[in-house]
């Protein structure tokens, strides 16, 4: 009897979280007049809303921009994160602990303080309205460095010693021995930085003004608030669906990794 109430509660909760998404996807295929219906089914499903979106904004270009930017950021965060993480965990040099201290300290600084100067830096570099502004500031993640460092600390020294005798230098040790062992942390860092970059919208809004370079969340935002959607609810929901689908698809296959990765953000503080 008690079990019954638990399940009932969990299912109602599940519906509260999942139904709005199902409704959004279904509504994006409904004709404008049926959108406010609560149900999911319509006998008049149509692609009109999607056609309107594709006609009004270069959404495919935005999809490409987002994929390109997020991939570059993610690969770079993994690459440099593992290099710095290696130096800070397995090499002894003067000032190492100081660098570590600086990293921990900078994580405490609220981003609100550096936002405006960062924008001005982009202006001075001539990076406004270029991929550089979207990619370069995101190429290193302090959290990524810390995760790699933490993981590398637990790798036995014997492996390194043996590799050195075989004539490996540090980069070879990192990429040939540490990387293959580091799958879990690479996945975690990868998911966190890809999601962070894919979903970020404040920074693109600041540094990108031309349509051709806008990321997808930015373009969908401006489409909805800039009046281009002309109060067509269907088009708005279709644009939102297009933005949501890629990440939901990836999540569907790797949900366990997503949840575990996000749970590690708890370590952040």
């Amino acid at each position: 009897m008690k079990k019954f109430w638990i399940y009932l509660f969990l299912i109602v909760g599940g519906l509260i979280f999942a139904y709005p998404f199902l409704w959004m996807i279904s509504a994006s295929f409904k004709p404008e007049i049926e959108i406010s219906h609560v149900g999911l089914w319509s006998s008049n499903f149509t692609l009109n809303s999607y056609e309107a979106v594709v006609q009004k904004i270069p959404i495919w270009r935005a999809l490409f921009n987002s994929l390109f930017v997020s991939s570059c950021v993610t690969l770079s965060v993994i690459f440099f994160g593992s290099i710095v993480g290696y130096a800070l965990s397995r090499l002894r040099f003067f000032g190492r602990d100081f660098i570590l201290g600086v990293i921990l300290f900078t994580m405490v600084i609220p981003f609100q303080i550096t936002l405006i100067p960062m924008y001005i830096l982009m202006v001075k570099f001539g990076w406004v309205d270029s991929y550089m502004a979207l990619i370069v500031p995101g190429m290193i993640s302090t959290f990524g460095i810390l995760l790699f460092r933490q993981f590398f600390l637990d790798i036995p020294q014997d492996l390194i010693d043996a590799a050195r005798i075989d004539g490996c230098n540090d980069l070879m040790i990192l990429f040939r021995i540490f990387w293959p062992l580091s799958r879990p942390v690479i996945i975690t860092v990868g998911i966190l930085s890809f999601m962070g970059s894919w979903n970020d919208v404040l920074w693109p809004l600041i540094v990108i003004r031309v349509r051709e370079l806008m990321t997808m969340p930015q373009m969908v935002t401006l489409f909805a608030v800039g009046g281009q959607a002309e109060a067509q609810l269907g088009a708005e929901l279709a644009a939102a669906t297009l933005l949501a689908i890629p990440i939901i698809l990836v999540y569907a296959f790797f949900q366990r990794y997503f949840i575990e990765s996000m749970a590690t953000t708890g370590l952040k503080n």
Partner: protein
Amino acid sequence: MKQKNTNSESKIGYLMSLPYILYFLLFVGFPLVFSFILIFHKWNVITPMEWVGLRNFIRLFQDRLFFQSILNTLKFLVIHIPLQIIVALLLAVLLNQKIKARGFFRAVYFLPVIVSGVVITLLWRQLYAYDSGLLNILLTKMGLSRIPWITHPDWAMPSIAIMATWKNVGLYIVLFLVGLQGIPRYLYEAAEIDGARPIQQFFFITLPALNSTIVLVIILSTIGGFSLFIEPFVMTGGGPVNSTLSAMLYIYNQAFYFGHMGYAATLGFFFAVIVLLVVLIQKKLVEQKDK
């Protein structure tokens, strides 16, 4: 020989740390120093900087709208954080029972966490719409009257807080689940032998054991809440009557709508200090509780 070895190790160490050092100098060190210069200047990026001394701060302290935007942000936090903790704790405790399909439920609750805030806000803008929104349609079907979710100043910020809770709560459910699984079973068994009811077990065993997780949830959602931006930007544009104007939205408008870079940097600086203070106070309060 030994000396030479550590020397080359140092060299490689610096070389491999170099990416971070460059990143720090360019994207952390310089902006920090520059923000300190900016707060004493008036600047719109195009014309030369103009030294104004402390005038940015004088203006800040007379800027009613900025203080209202901070109050709005705090109002958001005051609703969002308790709501988040209660809902997350409740669902986590239920998920921690011996049930089937736990992974499935967890994955469903987590879904809004991974989806862009833009999608969530566009979706909820429809759900909250006064005439055609799903929530009001459901309310009228149940014979209740419509609620002006985002059209009335008293309702708009709470509505955004509810939406933010819906979006983020999955993450906190997972954090609480981790915490719950760390509580040893024998504590409950002992309590049961002593005749403690489930409610008592919850308040005397579960809740104290989750203290550090609760701290974490409070701090994470405080930091998240202080950067509230895209939700009001998309949902209400800060209205009605500036009731959802968050501090970040106000700073954004000052910088990129009006072009007041120096003033916006001052606002950002001041606001960052508030964020740090609030988080530090939260930590202090909870550490005292531990003693």
